Structure formats: C-alpha cells, structure tokens
C-alpha cells in the first residue's frame, strides 16, 4: 500500500512517497515554493512518481499539510502540520516526547503523549523573530548564506544581545551592531540565541525530553546548540528534518487507509 505526503511549506514544497507494506520511503523530493503553489506541488509529485516508475493510480491516498495545504489539489485530505510533524518525528525518533519545529515562517512546540499522539502544542506565527525567515534576513544582511551562518556562529565567544521582538527592528539592531564593529560571528550567535529564546518563550524551560528538532532551520548549524542552551537539555536533530512533515503526512495517509486514523 503506497501513500504520499505533501508538505506545502512557506519556503519549500516537500513530497514523501511511502510504502506502508515495507515501511520504507519509496521516493522523496523538494522544490522551492512559488506563486503557483498547486502546480508546483503537483509537478514535484508527478515527477517523483515518474522517476520511480509509479502511476497516480498506485497511490492509495495523498495527505497535504503545511500552510499551503489547502492549495494542493492532488491531495485527498488535509491535515495540519502539527499532527504531521508529530507523526514524522515519532516514526524517526520513537522516544521523542517534545518536538520543536522551526520552519520558514513559524515555529511550533509539540508535546507528545506516551503513545506518540499530540498532547498539546504551542505556535508562534505572528512574529518572524522566532523563525527561519529571521535567519534569511540576517544572512542577507551579513553577506553570507544560511549554510555560512553556522560556521560563523561556531567562531563566536561573545554572542551579541539581540533584543528586538520583530525582525524589521532586529535588522535595524544588527545594522547598529555592525556600525559598532561587533564581529559578524557574535551577531549570528546572538540571532540564533534570540530565535531559541522565542521558541522556549512559548512554553518556558520546563520541557520534557527527549527533545527532537525538526523543520528546515534544524539544518542550520549552531541552532541545535542554541536551543540546547536555552532549554538546558540535549536536543536531537530529526533525521532529514526538512522532510519530517511530508513523512508524517504520508504516515497519516497510510493510517487512514488502514483504518487507524480518526
């Protein structure tokens, strides 16, 4: 039984094709998000199927998730990214109790119960200061890339204090730091600490472990360490963290087909 999950996020679209019988990922892919979201999602999905010798009729069910989930015409069903990230993380790290997902335009903290179901969640999607968008703005301002941020942060011994509650003002603050000759690495480390602070601010420091970190920002080196410092406990990056939502969506689709998803 083959199912698919499509995660239409704010920055990228991810697709995972899942074989429920063998419990393996058959195919996966990712493209940048754009104006024509439905066409992009469908193109990625159909391209993956073709590349793996599959037809649409081979796919028993498709679940779309992510902020653009309702625009994914090929999906049979939509499920929120809260549920899908929880599923995806639980599959990849069965011991997970808390999930931190930092994506392009929001961040979430999801608590799981002993069965891996969502117990509670908190979201920040009103303020870009706790999201990947903040890192993009900083990378552009510091004339580096997202990948380059981690290398810079690793060289910092005195992270700068970034106190603004909003990305626009934080960018102004960074300009001020640059004018004051604050080293770039200290600015980056300060920004990463600020993002981690926003995330922990949603729920406080009393977070039960194991904590698993997912979403595109989990790929940015230095963020895991910033979160560990803010939470006061180890943080495990999810394997292939950008794909966790799409994987979870595919798992939900498979559960639905097998009658175990309500």
């Amino acid at each position: 039984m083959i199912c698919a999950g499509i995660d239409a996020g704010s920055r990228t679209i991810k697709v995972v094709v899942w074989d429920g019988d063998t419990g393996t990922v058959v195919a996966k892919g990712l493209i940048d998000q754009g104006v024509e979201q439905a066409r992009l999602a469908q193109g990625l999905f159909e391209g993956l199927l073709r590349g793996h010798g599959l037809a649409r009729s081979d796919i028993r069910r498709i679940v779309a998730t992510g902020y653009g989930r309702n625009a994914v015409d090929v999906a049979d069903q939509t499920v929120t990214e809260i549920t899908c990230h929880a599923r995806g993380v639980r599959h990849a790290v069965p011991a997970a109790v808390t999930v931190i997902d930092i994506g392009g335009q929001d961040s979430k903290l999801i608590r799981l119960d002993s069965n891996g179901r969502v117990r509670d969640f908190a979201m920040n999607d009103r303020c870009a200061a706790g999201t990947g968008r903040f890192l993009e703005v900083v990378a552009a301002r510091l004339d580096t890339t997202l990948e380059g941020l981690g290398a810079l942060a690793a060289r910092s011994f005195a992270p700068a204090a970034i106190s603004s509650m909003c990305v626009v003002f934080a960018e102004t603050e960074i300009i001020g730091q640059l004018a004051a000759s604050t080293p770039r690495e200290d600015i980056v480390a300060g920004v990463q600490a600020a993002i981690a602070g926003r995330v922990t601010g949603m729920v406080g420091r009393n977070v039960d472990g194991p904590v698993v970190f997912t979403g595109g920002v989990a790929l940015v080196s230095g963020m895991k360490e910033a979160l560990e410092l803010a939470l006061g406990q180890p943080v495990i990056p999810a394997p292939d963290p950008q794909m966790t939502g799409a994987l979870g969506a595919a798992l939900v689709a498979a559960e639905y087909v097998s009658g175990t998803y309500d």
Partner: protein
Amino acid sequence: MTEAPRQLTLEQWDLRYLQLEQAGLAHPSYVGPLSRHLAEGDLRLTKLRYDDSPAALRLWNFLLTEEDRLHEARRRGKRIVGTMKDLGTIPVMAYSLGDLVAFYPDGAWWTPCVMENSTGLLDIADSMGIDESFCPVRAMLGAFVTCEHFPIPDLLTCSVGATCDDFSAIAQRLEGLGHRILWWEVPHRRHPEEGEDAVRLPGGFLAPKGLVAFVESELRRVGRALEDLAGRSLDEARLRAGIARTNRIRQCLADLRDLAYTVDPCPMPALEMLIAEMLAIHFCSDQDECLAVLEDLLAEVRERVIAGIGVSGPGAVRVFWVNPVADLRVMNLLEQCGARVCGTDYLFAHALDLIPEDRPAMEALAMQALADPMVGPAFDRASRIRQDIARFRSEAVVVCRIPGASHCAWEGRIIQEVLHQDMDIPIVEIEVPPVSDSVAATLRTRLEALVETVRQRRPR
C-alpha cells in the same frame, strides 16, 4: 419542525425571510431581513453564517437595532445611562427605576468588526493617543466623538479600581473630552484572612464581608445619581423587582447554556450563543424584549433537542472558549474546523449567575459585582473555568486573546497552569483582531490542529 437546522449566508437568509413572511411569520417590528443592515455599513454580515431559525433572526435583529432603540428612547424623552466597564450591575439598578434606559458604550468594541473598520473609530482613538496597544474597546472613544452609533448618555457611570487597566485609561481619556463620568470603585477581590468575616459570593468565590460592604456603599452612591436622573426613589421593593426580572433573564440564559453546551448534536451555533450570552450584561437596551428574545431562542433549542437535531456534525470536538472574540467570524470558523462550543467564560461569568434574592437587594448586587472573575486573582478565574470544563465535559480549551487587552498578556499562562494541575486537556491560545482576515489561515491551523489532537486522543 423535522428538518435539521442549517447555517445560512446572508443571501440565503434573505430568501428564507421572504418564505417566512409569505408563510405569515409573526414578529416584532424591529425584525426584518438581515441584509438591510448592510446599508448601514455592517459589511461583516456578508461573511458570517447564521442559524436558520426565526428565533435567531429575531436575536440578530434585536442586536443590530440597538442604536435605533436608543435614539427612539431619546426622542420619547427617556433618560439614557451609559454604564461603562460594567458587566451586569448598574443596568439592573437603572432598569429597576422604570423610565431609564441603560446601555453599554463599551459594546462599540464590535463596531470595527461589524463595519470592517469602515467607520474609522479606531483611527479616531489612535489620534487621541489611545492606539493599538489598547484593547479594541477603544473604539468607544471614536463612537463618542462621531455621535453616530449611540446618543450621548444623560449619565455616564464607569467602574474602576480592580477592573481593566485599558478601560480605565480609555474612560479617563473620554472624561478629558468633557464627558462627565460617575466613577465607582471595585476593590480587588482578595481571599479572606484567617478569622475575617467572609461571604460566599454567587459563583462560589469567598470574599471578606468588608469588601462587599464597600462595594454596596459605592453602588448606593451610583443609585442616588440614578434616582436624581429618574426622579424617583430606588427603594428596596423596586430593586427587588428589578433583580427578579434580571434573574428571569439569567435563568433563561442558564437553561439555554445547559442545553446548547451539553446536548449532542449541538442545538444552537456558537455565534448565536455568544450574542445571547452578551445580552446578560446590558439587555441590549430593552430588558423586557431581551427576555422575550431569549425565551424564543430557548424554545427553539428545546424543540431541536426533543427532535434530536442540531447544527454540529457527529463527533464535533467539545471546546471550552475563554474570552469573547473581537471578530465574530471566528465562532463560525471553529465549527467549520469540526468543533462546537461546550462552555464559555466571556469575562462576565458572574453576570450569568442568579443574583441572591434572599439578601437585602443592594447587598445582593454588591455580592454579584464582587463576583466578577476579572476583579479577583486570575487563579480564581482559572479555577472557575476548571469547574465549568468538568461540568460541560469540554475536551479542549481555546484561550482567545484580545489584542492590546492588558489582562490577556498573562492570563493564558495562568489558566494553562491551573488546568494542567489535574486535567490532561489540550489548550491553545489564539489572538483575534477585529477583522481577522489577515490571520485567518493561522487561526484555522490552530483550531484544526486542536480538533485533530482531541480526535486522536479519544478512545477508539
């Protein structure tokens, strides 16, 4: 009536109205097709979904014609009292005097929503230094400036003290514009100290007897001003009769809530229930008609319960809702996401409790004023919410923040703390501006995720 109720668009309601008219629907003179309010600028009405019962039509028309009623009262020489930051106390006194009409100027907080910001009320407040860092109730300032939404009252009262900081600042700004305000103080409701005489308030909170006596003295001061305005005495008999009339409304609402929040399928949508509950604090400027409107709604709900029909789908998630929404559309959204409201705390839970009729009337009113969940510790309010969640068997909680409202910044965390002491219940916080279109997607995600979470937690 055997057909399941539906939720209609404005257009669909107009068609249904014609059919009902042709079928000989009898209704009060203020009832008409809802779309006529569009001409007055109530643009948001086109985005809402309404219960299809004649009782709901009457409820909406009653709400949307309050301005007309107030202007008519002025023309007929009635004296008008604006009871600000008063959640259910001074209107009881005013209506006990007969010729006074009380209303709730703070109710203008929904005008930016209903008129989709087209009247500029918030802009006027901005220009007066009461900007978006304050609760949307600041729209009231604009309404006083434009004089387009209600007549300027003959007497303005405002509670102050342990009530909302925002509102105090807004009302002070209003007074600075030359509107004289009779302030009355509500002290912070604290727990009695050991050995201190205590009183059990409606709703269950305990308070020192001295605090009740203080509030009573404040109410007597307001009472004298109302007597001067009405030209008659607010004696014990009149106040008792007024309290009894108020209690009939509260009892009707209690019956309505008991059915709407417990019976499956849900017999009345969340939006109409929100409007109905709001009537408890101000009676929409006509206490007798308020009772008639609610009795009509209750009769409709009873019929639906007997027929086993309702508006929610099977398995709708039972949500306890904290704080009223600045944008009415969100109540529709909750149901579209697969949930229904089972229990509420719209900031005035005390105004839903019966006022004691076995006490001297003014003391009884003081007791209910002091029972206001907003004038005591947030932990007390959270404890009452916890009791109601158990009573209504709610499966999840939505704490709805009002942008700028000072209490909203911290109460959500306290409510979560108290509920999680002994309840394993998912809680989500949302913030709803007066026109929520720009955050509709994120609100939907939160509510859908809450519904998914509850469904996954249910025993299979």
